């Protein structure tokens, strides 16, 4: 079977970057900077509340009102899911995929291994994002937009450890269409 290669993105980098930047400006002009990861804590807070209301009331973080309601951030994340789904469908790139090309090139076709690594990765991503008061959107992109001091240590450790991990986890390079 022919080795799969990494495809080009639907949009070139400059136009995609301009559009993403303008969405950030729109968000800061209308409401607040882009951000995603808070709602993962909010989703948990709602589940915990259904089981043990007193725990939530006494918790120093999730007792805050923003973790209790289905507000702006919740609908923002539902929007991400909807926008990505509709776009992928419209340009005929919606496709069931269980692994990635970089993963296959380095670790073979086993889906189980990819899923295990994906689950552990997801755990670290969100735990880290909340430690850092935000993720790649809320801390990195919005931090640079606002020029916050917090974006400096975040950028160094996120890209440093990200590049190091990718270097260790993906030593072999697949064919990339440019």
């Amino acid at each position: 079977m022919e080795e799969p290669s990494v495809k080009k993105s639907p949009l070139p980098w400059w136009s995609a970057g301009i559009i993403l930047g303008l969405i950030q400006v729109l968000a800061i002009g209308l409401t607040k900077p882009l951000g995603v990861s808070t709602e993962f804590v909010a989703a948990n807070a709602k589940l915990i509340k259904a089981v043990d209301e007193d725990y939530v009331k006494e918790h120093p973080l999730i007792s805050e009102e923003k973790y209790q309601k289905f507000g702006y951030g919740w609908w923002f994340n539902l929007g991400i899911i909807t926008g990505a789904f509709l776009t992928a469908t419209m340009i005929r790139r919606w496709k069931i995929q269980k692994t990635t090309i970089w993963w296959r090139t380095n670790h073979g076709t086993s889906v189980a291994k990819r899923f295990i690594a994906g689950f552990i990765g997801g755990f670290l991503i969100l735990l880290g994002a909340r430690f850092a008061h935000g993720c790649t959107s809320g801390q990195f992109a919005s931090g640079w937009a606002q020029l916050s001091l917090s974006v400096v240590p975040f950028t160094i450790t996120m890209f440093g450890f990200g590049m190091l991990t990718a270097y260790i986890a993906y030593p072999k390079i697949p064919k990339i269409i440019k």
Partner: protein
Amino acid sequence: MSSETIGFIIGSLFGAALFLGGLADPDKIIGTLRLKDYHAMRTIAVFVLVGMLGTWILEIAGVAHFSVKPAAMVAIAIGGALLGIGFGLTGYCPGTGLACAASGRLDALVTVAGMLLGAWVFILIYAGIVQPIDAIANFKKVTLPEISGIARGFWVVPIFVGGIVALVLTRKK
């Protein structure tokens, strides 16, 4: 318009743009972290530069809604490292993980499940571990212009111009 509606609209635009721009594509992200495929890095650079310039203009016009994160230097360095390891292992982050799951990637759905567990553990360890670390070297909600005393324009213009020049000089001929 209610804030929920505005959130949904901006979120939809963001999800569409993440997908079209190739950021909601783990192969593009890993390619960039491995310094073998610069598409995602260049997209992210333009995203950041346009956001920075636009936010400065909004501030001058008096309509910017800032939400600066506290500069808890140790907690943020640790969080960035943990997120970076997950990012480099999977090629996903919270926003692109949701977008990729919505485009049919089942491994992204598994990563989103891992994120929900990560959020739960964060809640469990918040009082005992997170809060004490967050208090170390915490400069509160401060921006680079505020802490340096150098006006925002003197940050934005050199970074923006320097960034655009670097992008143009390193483009594919």
